[in-house]
């Protein structure tokens, strides 16, 4: 390929997430210690809900027994259907709306919350089949959901969330984890 501008290939460039997304964090969601969530906001305002790398599910070699998108008798996130360009029909989420419940093989249960206001576009059904995606690639293939904030609120997504630096500061202040016996 004859490029007029030669690209510098000596060092790996920014990844897809680094090129297009801003990371926002919510620590200790609902007061639960270390249940940290990460929202990846694309430059086009779409958000991807993921687990932060510090989340307990991803620690201590846990394996997942079950992921349930049915959060109540009347509501299953799997029933979410959006239509058209304006994504009509998607379930509207507020910050503390539960998105799914994850049960691990050691019987610990965790609820994943939306952490932002917006319309639910899709939930990741691949992790229902292949739970290891969530454990191995929580920030990409193992994402939880895609949420579209309202146009007017798109810049406010990060207002109540922590930037990466602030989040790392919070994490570093935490007590070191108790050593498992």
């Amino acid at each position, binding site marked *: *390929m*004859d*490029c*007029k*501008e030669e*690209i510098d*290939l000596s060092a*790996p*460039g920014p*990844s*897809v997430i680094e090129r*297009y997304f801003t990371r926002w964090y919510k620590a200790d969601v609902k007061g639960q210690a270390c249940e940290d969530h990460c929202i990846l906001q*694309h430059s*086009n*305002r*779409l958000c*991807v809900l993921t687990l932060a790398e510090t989340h307990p599910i991803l620690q201590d070699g846990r394996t997942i027994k079950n992921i349930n998108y049915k959060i109540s008798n009347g509501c299953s996130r799997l029933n979410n259907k*959006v*239509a*058209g*360009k304006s*994504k009509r029909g998607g379930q509207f989420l507020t910050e503390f709306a539960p998105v799914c419940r994850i049960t691990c093989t050691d019987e610990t249960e965790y609820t994943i919350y939306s952490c932002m206001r917006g319309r639910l*576009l*899709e939930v*990741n059904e*691949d992790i229902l089949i292949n739970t290891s*995606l969530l454990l191995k*690639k929580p920030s*990409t*293939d193992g*994402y939880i959901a*895609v949420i*579209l904030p309202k146009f007017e609120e798109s810049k406010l997504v990060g207002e109540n969330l922590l930037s990466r630096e602030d989040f790392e500061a919070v994490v570093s202040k935490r007590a070191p984890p108790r050593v498992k016996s």
Partner: protein
Amino acid sequence: MLPLKEKDKPVVQKLLSSGCCARCVLRFCCVLVQSLYRQPGEDESEEGTRTATEQSDDPPKKRMKLDDGLKGSEASAGSGDAEAPPAPALSHCVVCLGVLQEYCSRDHARKVAEAVKTEDYHFETILLSVSLPAQLCVREHSCWLHVKKEMREKVMTRVKDDIVPLKEAFKWSVQGLIATELGGVYLGDEPCSLQLFDFVSILWHYVCSCSDVFLLVHNVEIVSYCPPHGFRHYPTPPGRPTSICTSQAIQCLHTSIYVAGRYNKYSRSLSQTPWIIDGRRMMESSVEELIAEPLASSFRSKGFNFSSSGREDVDVRTLGKGRPFAMEMLNPHRYRFTKMEMKKIQETINTSSDKIAVRDLQIVTRECMGHMKEGEEEKTKSYTALVWTQKPIEKDDIIFLDDIKELTLDQKTPLRVLHRRALAVRQRVIHSMNASFRDPHHFYLRLKTQAGTYIKEFVHGDFGRTKPNLCQLLKMDTDILELDVEVGNCGTSYFQKGNPGKSTGSMTRIVQLGLDFSGDFPRLDVENVIFFFSFQKTRLKQYT
């Protein structure tokens, strides 16, 4: 041959006494002989009739024709006023408010011609349009009711629709004069699409500042449906106006010219259309602006519409034969260009910027713009991607990619476009691939795919929403660093004249001369023919 008949006489008398001008009388009598509306010769006395104080006559020659018809009725009329209606009524016709009087003179034709000449258009044919104040149709309706009312028993075998429309009469009166002044040919009817190529349309706007008329309606149609008793708020016949119509503006508009060609994009930071967010320009220039500038200055046109057969991302180069595009140049002052001149413009575009290049630039018909979008789904695209791998690779690790044929992908709408596209799963086929090793973390991947395939998402997986993807195939993380596209072969195509969808007599077959080059394209000077695009009957939705 006398256009006016015996039975018209009472009508004529009625109209003249109400204050109609001669031409309006002819209109109400449904006289279709165009030459009668034109002034027979230079008539300077016409100017004199404007002042109401003078004892003035209708344009004498016109009157003579009317007089012939009225001769019989003069004697029987008794009042004897048919010869010389009261002077004030002559100067302002109550129906046309002077439009068919003063404005049908040679002087005004000259004024219009001057206005066109100052704009310096090149043209061969002219279309004259007039926009008149709405109150004229109210006045006409009122006059018609007046005549109908009085003549109920005798006459009206005619309906209102038979009355010659004011605009028609005006055009008949004036078109010849304007055409002579400008030296162009007048187009009588709405021209067919073939002739739309090269005419100037002159729009003549009139306003009226009459204060004694209030507008009942805004819409001409409502007046014609209005039953007579509903018209009671307006006098019949219409009242004498205190002022006449004035000519407000004369606007000239040339039909659009269509230019087409193929473009290559060599820059990785050039958008196809101007990229403006919140009024702020995000990127200097764009493909369409770079192509349009030299065209606009040669054609002397102020606006354009750009259309291309698909588009590419800002950071993707377009190589190979180039992407077909068509440009509509709005209101050009010049439209005739020889092949040499078009080549010169093409050279200008190519030397003006190293970011794009244009070829096969030519003038085409309007149907082109529609054809641009057709057949997009049927095309094959060739891409070259520079891929980064997370783990180090060796030459043998990527050989297997060459053997993968007709790989079907399920692509969910990529996140980067999901904000403006519907959420859906699209099946797209990668016909073949070819990998060339570069270094342990990079290789080039050439792909031939179905149109509408998202290559970037195939390479990095888009959060696993494109399946299968290159990460899964190579069993490691991959990312795309660069992408180039070559718009593929599209086969011979047919240029259809006339309406697509209708069977036409003549189809011009256009064949591309020139050779098939892969790799760097040479600047071909294709003399006879032009470009390809697939001609498909169904229009399919366009995917990026």
